[in-house]
């Protein structure tokens, strides 16, 4: 199992690729929309890229509850467990 930090770092790479946010800014307490300025379409891309990267399924009804980077990392860790 990857560590929380490893999941965060991989997710940060995706957020950087899709939305251009510096990877170091993608920390667990950050809100995707309010802090990182990720728009709704980019968020969809991030979710799908995360599904491929981590080999998990993130249904749309779950995805909309992932407000912060920490929410997403926790969901990915649970889903991969």
């Amino acid at each position, binding site marked *: 199992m990857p560590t929380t930090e490893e999941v965060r770092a991989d997710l940060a790479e995706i957020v950087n690729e*899709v*939305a*251009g946010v510096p990877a170091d800014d993608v920390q667990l307490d950050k809100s995707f929309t309010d802090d990182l300025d990720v728009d709704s*379409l980019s968020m*969809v*891309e991030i979710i*799908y890229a995360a*599904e491929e990267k981590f080999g998990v399924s993130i249904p749309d009804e779950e995805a909309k509850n992932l407000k912060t980077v920490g929410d997403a990392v926790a969901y990915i860790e649970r889903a991969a467990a």
Partner: protein
Amino acid sequence: MSRIRVVVTGLGATTPLGGDVASTWDGLLAGKSGVRKIEADWATDLPVQIAAQAAVDPAEILERVEARRLDRSAQLAVVAALEAWQDAGYGLREENPVDRERLGVAIATGIGGMVTLLSNWDIQKEKGARRVSPLAIPMLMANASAANVSLRLGARAGVHTPVSACASSNESISLGLDMLRLGRADVAVVGGTEGVIHPLPIASFAQMQAMSRRNDEPERASRPWDVDRDGFVLAEGAAILVIETLEHARARGARIYGELAGAGITADAHDMVQPDPTGASQALAMTKALRESELAPGDIVHVNAHATSTPQGDVTEAGSIRQSLGEHTEAIVTATKSMTGHLLGGAGALESLSTLLALYHRTVPPTINLDNPEPDLGIDIASKVRDLPSGDLAGINNSFGFGGHNVAVAFTNAYATGGST
């Protein structure tokens, strides 16, 4: 008679000859061909294996994240629009001194984001609906280029995308002229773009027998009016003009390239893809442009022809030029598609830009590959660079599209400031 005068104050282009206006114009005067063999694997089984790709990849110019959110046609349009905007002496958004509610956009495309459409369909077939990009629609829609330029510049006076195949971007120039003359805007960013060098459009155009198959001599494939021409060469690129009312341009002391004097639009109503061989509606488009410009046929010293290098189209246009400008017209005619290939929805704007620069610099770019001209054309074709006389000059750019669309746009060197020789 009082009418609102409209002038051109900014130019931008990214084409098979260069990544900006200066390199494109140098390439045109040098008689350089932008047509090359397509190196991609997908071309090897196609009947047509040549195209004129953009000399500079727009994705290398734009920021990475912006580039990945734009179809190639919009990447090209944004690059050209930013050059035109800065060439006009304007800054971006916050530094933009134009009243945004008086700034319009009309940027055309013939086909739009077809490559985005096809690549997402490939993904859907292979990986399923959940892997289709959420950006697919805003990337592939035909108005994406105009909308993205509006976003970049903050333009709010109306954002338009005329679609009339290969006449599209001359129509956008005409529409911008209307906006300014009707008082709907003071400044407009107008032009067109195309980025569809992909196996499907090449196969489709090839099936129509519309494209040159001179695969072993790419640089000699686009040869308008030459007896050995065998079709057009697909190209990609964008060209953009910043137009504004003379009053607005003078108030800010803008450099002026010349006047956008008028436009004429007609339709053949004859056949979906073949021009009416009488050329009557093409000629009427030019005549209407003259009337709107308050010019006489004899005032026209230069025509940038649509002339795509197809067997029938080139001959029909020569006849329609004589019908409109007179059997003994002395206008120097050129076909810059001999060098750039055919930019489809970007062609009219690039060739309008060339027409205007020809008047501004008093120099007509050549029609290359004209080794054996079709007999009895009755027009003076520039097979090498030609000079234009001193004094007041007027020129016409023609664009014709599948569907029978004919759009002629007239420019003069009136009000030109700076750099004119």
